[in-house]
């Protein structure tokens, strides 16, 4: 006899207890600390902060630990916490030109004021598994030198001085910055909202979309004008004091893509921009973002928009991995009642088909169809 399905409550509790047990793993193995995650899995923390839209290394490390290393789950944890935080206002725009640069490369000029600085990078490493890292590895002390006082102006500013690249539109005085976490998104969306969407967007999704533009689906001939990674000051104008108060420093990666020129009968041709920005060191993310940002400007720049990466609704509606994973994974929730309804319809259609088939065929054929 069928017993009505009861006891879901205890099943959930037991499942969560088992999860906690699995998360900890073998208890003879030392527990991982938040400092260890933050220090030794730093790029994972950077990604969780970027796509979680919350600059807090400690909380991001906690989220990674709680999520058993599932970064999308960790991003989700951070987002859900962020959603409950009060908003005091928006900071002043950060000045990436004044960044304390740890890494800075340009693919467009051999040498630039302030120089090319490789910094900590996987580039040019040979991807050979290194058994010496398995345990007890003590790295050499990195080479050090006196910090340079030479300014490191942005490459796009250098191009801009000669008018070779379009100027970045200046924000109107007192204009508020869009925030798609506070106002529902409407299409067509302005570039500030597009950039916010891309900054929160899934790295893998943006990588694939950016890659598709390189392979001809919305080609826009990009050059890496500059990638820079380092620390910038964040300032906030407090109403009470009347001037900008420093809140602290954050690490950012910025990518400025220089793309094919445009021009018109009234305007001299010049390069166009694609922009990427992310918390921490996230070069793949910022480069992909810059490619997609440029692709999404097709309409604004009077280009034909036929490729997926140029389609604002397509890109912006599918870039968010917290939304995407939720909806894909919701398919494992029960759907008995809808399925039952479909089953009923399908049986009816099959029965009608069998009857019609029977009418039209000899007795032998009919027998076969009924099976």
């Amino acid at each position: 006899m069928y017993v009505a399905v009861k006891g879901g409550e205890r099943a959930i509790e037991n499942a969560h207890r088992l999860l906690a047990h699995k998360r900890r793993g073998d208890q003879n193995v030392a527990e991982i600390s938040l400092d260890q995650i933050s220090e030794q899995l730093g790029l994972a923390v950077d990604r969780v902060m970027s796509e979680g839209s919350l600059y807090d290394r400690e909380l991001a490390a906690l989220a990674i630990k709680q999520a058993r290393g599932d970064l999308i789950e960790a991003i989700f944890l951070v987002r859900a916490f962020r959603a409950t935080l009060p908003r005091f206002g928006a900071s002043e725009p950060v000045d990436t030109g004044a960044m304390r640069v740890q890494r800075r490369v340009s693919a467009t000029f051999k040498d630039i004021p302030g120089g090319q600085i490789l910094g900590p990078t996987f580039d040019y490493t040979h991807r050979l598994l290194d058994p010496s890292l398995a345990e007890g590895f003590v790295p050499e002390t990195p080479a050090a030198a006196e910090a340079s006082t030479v300014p490191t102006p942005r490459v796009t500013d250098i191009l801009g001085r000669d008018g070779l690249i379009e100027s970045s539109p200046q924000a109107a005085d007192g204009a508020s910055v869009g925030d798609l976490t506070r106002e529902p998104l409407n299409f067509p969306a302005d570039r500030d909202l597009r950039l916010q969407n891309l900054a929160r967007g899934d790295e893998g999704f943006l990588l694939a979309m950016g890659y598709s533009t390189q392979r001809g689906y919305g080609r826009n001939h990009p050059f890496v004008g500059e990638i820079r990674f380092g620390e910038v000051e964040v300032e906030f104008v407090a109403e009470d004091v009347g001037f900008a108060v420093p809140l602290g420093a954050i690490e950012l990666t910025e990518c400025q893509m220089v793309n094919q020129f445009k021009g018109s009968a009234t305007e001299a041709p010049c390069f166009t921009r694609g922009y990427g920005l992310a918390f921490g060191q996230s070069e793949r993310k910022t480069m992909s973002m810059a490619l997609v940002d440029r692709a999404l400007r097709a309409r604004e720049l009077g280009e034909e928009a036929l490729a997926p990466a140029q389609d604002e609704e397509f890109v912006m509606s599918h870039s968010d991995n917290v939304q995407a994973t939720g909806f894909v994974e919701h398919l494992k929730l029960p759907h008995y009642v809808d399925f039952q309804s479909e089953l009923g319809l399908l049986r009816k259609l099959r029965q009608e088909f069998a009857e019609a088939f029977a009418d039209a065929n000899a007795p032998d054929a009919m027998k076969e169809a009924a099976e």
Partner: protein
Amino acid sequence: MNAPAYNFAYLDEQTKRMIRRAILKAIAIPGYQVPFASREMPMPYGWGTGGVQVTAAILGPQDVLKVIDQGSDDTTNAISIRKFFAKTAGVATTTATDEATVIQTRHRIPETALHASQVLVYQVPIPEPLRFLEPRETETRRMHALAEYGLMHVKLYEDIARFGHIATAYAYPVKVNARYVMDPSPTPKFDNPKMDNCPALQLFGAGREKRIYAIPPYTQVVSLDFEDHPFEPYRFNAPCALCGAENSYLDEIVTDDKGGRMFVCSDTDYCEGRQAAGHHGSLSAAPYKEKAHG
């Protein structure tokens, strides 16, 4: 570390006010999808975040909350959401439909008729009834604005031409207050007639898609159809094997691997109530005894 602290029913008051404004607008324009700044909730998108936000915004300390999924109070997601509000709002919860003041649901409308002091909150995955005919939001909003619903009728007509029937078994489109075509969420079409002229307020929340819409009490809700192909609610033609009900929506339970099936009420509260009142079923419905239904 910033130790988190949460408000009554989880959401902060500013967010609740924003959601209430959207709800009021939705009630004022029955069936119209109002965009709202949906928040990330502590459960995944697609698992009821829209319904949870609507419930959080309307819930007061005196409310009695019921949560169902597939008609049942005991499915895992229903339990999870009920526990969420019991924990964050400390409200009383119930499984009895007539005792609840707020009922959050996924995929069903209770069998017990709702009354005027109740609110039914639907969890909605895709609020746009035209989405699978036209993927672009810019286009579908225009179509709603112009009440340009020909495409939907063409789709229903094509179903009839191909299958002899309208081949939509759930999320069957309705027209609300003779104006907006609306998605009733993926409830089986069996439930559609319950939405019409319902004394309770019906609110629909789609978290991922950031939309809220509503059917005010006693509003006309018509399932789309044709004169010669009228709307037919589907129900498996058998009594419930547990309570003998002849008019409730049934779940099909696979009892063995030899084609054994039994059919029981999907609304567990309704079924248990009937059994407590002395109604009994056969406990073993014969499989595949399905007839045309009307």
